[in-house]
């Protein structure tokens, strides 16, 4: 055993105290949400903090059996994965070309700021006209429409992240293959895509998360209850059962599950990704 010097200076205590307070600040509302979904309503209304041994799953049972929440949840998953299928391959191709041919075509250097500009366009500027455009194309009130609309956020972000990623792949790797007579297509499929896989995975996670969080596009582009995403489903629940906090928090908890898993699993990778991108910025 390594005998660590125990540092209990005042500074360390203050540091730890603030960190613990901030963890509680971020995490207690979630604990509260989960607790509220598991206790009977009368306890929830009476007590300050809903803690009891009298745990019940009836709110979850209600959400699953008496509402269409399962369907809406699956709709959200479908939209999320469709968004990945749209965004990830196209963004990978464009980001690769932009990084590799920027010496030849200098206008490709404007690519980074351009992607950032697209990302910053207020969603409402796109959502309003998409109502009309999707109307013509029979995409209004469809899950595919919401998936496409959400790519207005996920695509620029993916382009930006992958841009940084490809910048960090040394061109020497490809040049060796070209010397061996490989074509660009072979290099792309056999060298670049395998190396870029972690980047593409990160981009997929981001695309999924974009859809999972989204409210604006679903609200604007979906009308029929059968096509609701889970977010709209919760809004429907709020309208129908305004004070059924048990059911509402149960649905909100179900929606928080994929997010929490993604946040936890991707956290370390995300940090690494930012560090790589920051190297590129400097």
């Amino acid at each position: 055993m390594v005998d660590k010097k125990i540092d209990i200076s005042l500074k360390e205590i203050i540091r730890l105290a603030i960190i613990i307070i901030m963890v509680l600040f971020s995490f207690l509302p979630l604990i509260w949400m989960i607790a509220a979904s598991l206790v009977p309503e009368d306890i929830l209304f009476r007590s300050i903090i809903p803690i009891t041994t009298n745990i019940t799953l009836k709110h979850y049972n209600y959400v699953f059996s008496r509402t269409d929440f399962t369907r809406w949840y699956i709709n959200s998953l479908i939209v999320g994965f469709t968004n990945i299928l749209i965004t990830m391959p196209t963004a990978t191709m464009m980001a690769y070309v932009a990084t590799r041919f920027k010496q030849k075509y200098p206008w490709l250097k404007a690519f980074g700021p351009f992607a950032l500009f697209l990302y910053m366009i207020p969603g409402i500027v796109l959502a309003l006209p998409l109502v009309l455009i999707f109307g013509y194309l029979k995409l209004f009130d469809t899950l595919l429409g919401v998936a496409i609309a959400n790519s207005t956020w996920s695509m620029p972000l993916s382009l930006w992240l992958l841009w940084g990623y490809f910048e960090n792949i040394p061109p020497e790797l490809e040049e060796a293959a070209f010397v061996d007579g490989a074509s660009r297509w072979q290099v792309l499929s056999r060298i670049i895509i395998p190396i870029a896989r972690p980047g593409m995975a990160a981009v997929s996670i981001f695309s999924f998360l974009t859809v999972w969080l989204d409210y604006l596009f679903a609200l604007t582009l979906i009308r029929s209850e059968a096509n609701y995403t889970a977010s709209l489903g919760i809004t429907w629940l709020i309208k129908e059962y305004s004070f059924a906090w048990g059911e509402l928090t149960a649905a909100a908890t179900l929606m928080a599950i994929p997010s929490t898993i993604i946040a936890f699993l991707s956290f370390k990778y995300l940090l690494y990704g930012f560090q790589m991108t920051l190297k590129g910025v400097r």
Partner: protein
Amino acid sequence: MSVVSKGDKIFITSLLIPTLFFLSFVEFIPIIYALLYSFTSSSTFNPTINFIGLNNYINIIYSTFFWQDVINTLEYGSVTAIVQTLLGLGLAILFKDKKGSLYTIAKALIFIPYALPYISVSLVWKFLLDPQYGAVNKVMLALRLINDPIDFFGNPSNAMWSVMFVTIWQFFPFAMIILYAALESVPKDRIEAAQVDGAGPIQVFKHVTWPYIRKIFFITLFLRFLFNFGKFDHVWLLTGGGPLRVTETLPVAAWIISFQQYNYGVATSVAILNLLLLIPFLLIFLLSVYRER
């Protein structure tokens, strides 16, 4: 690879076309559409192109609601951005050089709100801050910090602060992660050299760390500002722009005009103005970031 062959051109074109096609479909054509309809008196039910010139814009600029909405949008965007970034920096400093697994879990726990659906976030905070049943009011009443419950979202003087609070709660982890990554990339030898020269922690931060992370700090600040400037979800879900329009930002105004007043022409004008107001800030940002390259 100095010459671009014909095969290369086919390669480049076929890789660029899917994205460009897609981007034009979801970004450029919609903006052109919005611009086009902003010059019409079109209704949402029956969108027709009947040009009325700049009338929408003139009416909006001379209306009482618009400038208040601009101020609200600027306030919402800037206050949330500044607080998020400073809070993120503070935490990043506390976490600096702390790589133990407990610290990693703490960071990940703080990060979770950032990945939560807006609907869940708004639901939880509306409940927690409810004047009658909310835990926050209950706790403060029990501790006798207040005599009467506070109506966080219903009282016009509190509503904007409450909405901004929830936005900050959800988004500050992003600033924390970016700034933590920036702090970790400050070369250790420079910090040590400064310490050897007898610099205290504040001096080390001021003269070594800050110059190194300054750029990232301002990038984060600007990104958060620009992002919140066009953000619809939190305001809409928490207050819907009310009470008495005190939280109405431009995106929310555009949505209400389009889908509650059915005035598509005016709604697209407000949306276009939202974009136009954002562009100067974006240009300042892009010029300052990319100028140094």
